[in-house]
């Protein structure tokens, strides 16, 4: 449900950027989201489309890219990916339901996921949270990467 807040965050940020850069019409916003937060893209787009009006984003399309993080264990050095902790994620979802902690806050990952080799929580992921990975503007018609 906090997809509405995410949409608001994206819109406010891009509107700010557009105002600062004298951009009057944004065509597309590309948003990167850690895949293990399992945001609901339908809700996110609905929220985006509902809230975007009366702004330089009035006609903008939202593109969502789910990013699969690579984790690194600082305790034993193992590099691993999401599929190596799939079972841990599943049991977490089972325990908390849809609004589970990593859905809301991907940066909590080290508290809930363990290194599959040594069991340590001392894991870092390069994809921490929601990012704006690109903005396409009407004027030029070309994608402009910001962030």
């Amino acid at each position, binding site marked *: 449900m906090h997809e509405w807040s995410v949409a608001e965050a994206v819109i406010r940020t891009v509107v700010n950027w557009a105002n600062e850069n004298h951009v009057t019409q944004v065509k597309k916003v590309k948003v990167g989201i850690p895949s293990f937060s399992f945001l609901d893209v339908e809700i996110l787009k609905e929220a985006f489309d509902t809230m975007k009006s009366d702004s330089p984003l009035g006609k903008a399309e939202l593109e969502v890219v789910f990013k699969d993080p690579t984790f690194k264990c600082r305790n034993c050095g193992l590099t691993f990916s999401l599929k190596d902790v799939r079972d841990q994620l599943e049991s977490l979802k089972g325990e908390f339901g849809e609004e589970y902690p990593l859905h809301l806050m991907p940066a909590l990952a080290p508290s809930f996921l363990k290194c599959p080799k040594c069991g340590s929580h001392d894991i870092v992921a390069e994809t921490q949270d929601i*990012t704006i990975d690109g903005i396409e503007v009407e004027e030029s018609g070309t994608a402009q990467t910001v962030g």
Partner: protein
Amino acid sequence: MEPLRQLAKEKLRGKKAIAVMSAKGGVGKSLVSALLALSLRGAVLVDLDVHTMATTKLFGLEGKLHEVTKKGIEPFKLGELGVVSLGGIVKDKYVVLPGGNAGEVMESLVAYANLGDANYVVFDLPPGLGDEVLTLERLTDFFPVVVTTPSAVSVKVVEYVMRYLNERGKRPLLVVNMAYMDCGDGKVARPFGDLKNAEDLAKRYNAPVVELPIDPSLESYIGKIHEYDGVVKGKVKKELVPYLT
């Protein structure tokens, strides 16, 4: 471009942000935060001590989960007061985080919180002088309420905070908690030493001081601190609140 930071900043815009802080632990930051937030009209208390989440313990909110709506994380309601804590996200799970993640989590907590039309946002900070303070500085121009006890170690440690805030151009208020204990018959005990160290510190940094007594009855209000109406609450209302409103 950091969308969550942007949202967190806008959520705080137009509200008075108060940061209850101290480099020293166990001096009463969480207790003072709670009593202060309860004493202000229209406040949300945001618990930023993600490792202890003391707020959930003080208010008896353990095991409860925040509702999440289109407006974000809905604060727990205790009368007029709203309370937001990571405890409402992780339930009773421990939170262990490598460097940097704690700041991210704090930022999300503020960004997603539905602060509604609150006038005041009271932040209960963890001890130390780390990412939490820096993160909060990125989000808002907060008013610092620095908490110490009269004990020599605490005052020395808290001096770091005073000096830091001073260099950042802020004028903190100093709360000397557990300053004395009323023993009846007009007698007063000072189990943590006299107040000279703390008062000198305040003078050096030109900070107003509020002294709060020890109230042994407080322990029986853990879990229902919103029902407490004793001497510490009275002092907070009468002496601390006027500096903040």
